[in-house]
């Protein structure tokens, strides 16, 4: 079969065209524009003057920006390791179940993941409600009988949002862990059982090393995802103090959309971009190196 390469080029051009146009407009151009904008003092819409690295210096000295960075890191530290670990533990439990029982239990853990964030917000806003929330039956005794206003108490805000996020996103990690566990051949366990290895030893010597690549994958995905935290923080701070609970994406939005400082907003977006790229590469390498030992 000999086909002219010209007709192949033509087919390729037509097939790639929609993708090319979309990527040019919504990916390549916005990315370049973001970097360019970060060196100007432009408002959100309209031209601005070149100011060099001024925006970056301003970020470095802006207290609100450092709050945003720290809160983002704090949120990730609260939600990612605990979420991944919990997903693994639950996966081990669910993996033991069989048939319809397993399907139902899996669905119970997974269902929150497919809900819109607004629905998660409504459900947990109601659960934690200061006056009538059912969670107050657990919280109030810990607080000396007083009802707690969870989202308006600063030290409780991030832990509560992290808790809700773990509840919401666990299903995703759970699925990957269960798939990973199913890939471990049962013969290995049978052999270990014959050798008299107990449950804990089996986990330590078989399950943990063999599930490690999945753990790395899940950890990396969750890390990148949770660094972009915005929706939950925005929704739960509605009508209360925002600044103490500022996170990075929220800061971008604040500068660019609420204060009309496009340049400064773009500069903070560039910082977020770099943080995510550097952290994800670094973390992936670290975890891989640990796994190879």
């Amino acid at each position: 079969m000999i086909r002219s390469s010209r007709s192949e080029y033509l087919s390729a051009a037509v097939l790639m065209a929609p993708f090319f146009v979309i990527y040019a407009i919504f990916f390549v151009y916005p990315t370049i524009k973001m970097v360019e904008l970060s060196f100007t003092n432009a408002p959100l819409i309209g031209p601005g003057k070149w100011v060099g690295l001024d925006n970056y210096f301003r970020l470095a000295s802006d207290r609100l920006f450092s709050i945003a960075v720290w809160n983002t890191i704090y949120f990730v530290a609260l939600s990612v390791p605990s979420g991944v670990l919990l997903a693994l533990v639950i996966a081990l439990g669910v993996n033991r179940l069989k048939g319809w029982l397993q399907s139902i239990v899996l669905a119970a853990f997974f269902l929150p993941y497919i809900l819109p964030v607004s629905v998660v917000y409504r459900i947990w806003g109601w659960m934690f409600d200061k006056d009538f929330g059912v969670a107050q039956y657990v919280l109030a005794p810990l607080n000396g009988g007083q009802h707690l206003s969870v989202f308006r108490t600063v030290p409780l805000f991030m832990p509560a949002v992290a808790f809700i996020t773990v509840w919401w996103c666990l299903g995703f990690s759970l699925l990957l862990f269960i798939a990973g566990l199913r890939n471990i051949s049962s013969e290995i366990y049978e052999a270990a059982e014959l050798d008299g290895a107990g449950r804990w030893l089996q986990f330590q010597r078989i399950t943990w090393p063999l599930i490690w690549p999945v753990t790395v994958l899940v950890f990396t995905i969750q890390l990148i995802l949770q660094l972009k935290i915005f929706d939950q923080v925005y929704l739960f701070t509605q009508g209360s103090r925002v600044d103490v609970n500022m996170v990075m994406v929220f800061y971008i939005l604040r500068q660019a959309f609420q204060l009309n400082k496009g340049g400064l907003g773009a500069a903070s977006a560039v910082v977020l971009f770099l943080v995510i790229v550097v952290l994800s590469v670094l973390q992936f390498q670290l975890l891989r190196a640990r796994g190879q030992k």
Partner: protein
Amino acid sequence: MSATVQRLEVTASPAAARLARLNRLDTVGLLITLVTLVGAIIWAFPLYWGLVTTFKHEYEIVRPGFQPWPEHFTFENYVHVLLQTKIGYWYINSLITSVAVTVLVVIMAASAGYAISQLDFPGRRFFWWMILGSFMVPIPALIVTHFIVISQLGLINTLAGVVGPQLIAPVTVIIYKQFFDSVPKDFREAAAMDGANDFQLLFRIYLPMNWGVTTALAIITFIGAWNLFLWPFLAVSSEDKMNITVGITQVHDNYGISYGRDLAVAMLAALPVAVVYLIFQRRVTQAIMLSAGIKG
């Protein structure tokens, strides 16, 4: 590793002792199962609690005490939000934008995936690396310039403006490319011999052969588009143009908080994705594996 083997040999015990140990292990196993079941109940409880609250009268909702089932079952909350809010608009807007995103992403990704997988053309490698690279770019970091692009196109506060930036779907292209790579070359050569062109090949052979993948990707794209909050929230300001995820949190009743109604409107917002998931459970699972890079 050799240390493990030695230890295992040492701990190997006579048959009777082993039997006793197995029995004990079963008790532990039962306990683990029990904890898992309790965990599942706790996990699902907020969903149940949110749902059951929507069927209570407001006076029952704010009454002290734990009431697992409504005393007087009512649809009042649903009737109110259906008649008194713009939920009809929000639903239609969500439906239009999510379906548009799904259809466009699938067509675009399948075409691009096919071209990169099967055709040889200048820039092929460049495109492939660009797609892999774009995987790393955090889309929320692009909100500022997306807004600028959309306003330059005159699409602020339109549904088209909501759809636009959602069309960047590198993962979908990558998955299609991988699946098309594994279609045997014989198919392509035989069909090309019969005079089929690349479009016929794609739509008559490659796509139908990977119908399951397409279904899975379409479902997960739809769910993602339906659930998206940040971009629709920025792109649209008038109530009539809002998506349901935005509408239900941005528009408030004039007469104070009503938990029953707030939750009823949330349940309606969740309904389509919940139904899609329950019907296509297997496909959703498959799509999640695929997007995480596990082929299955």
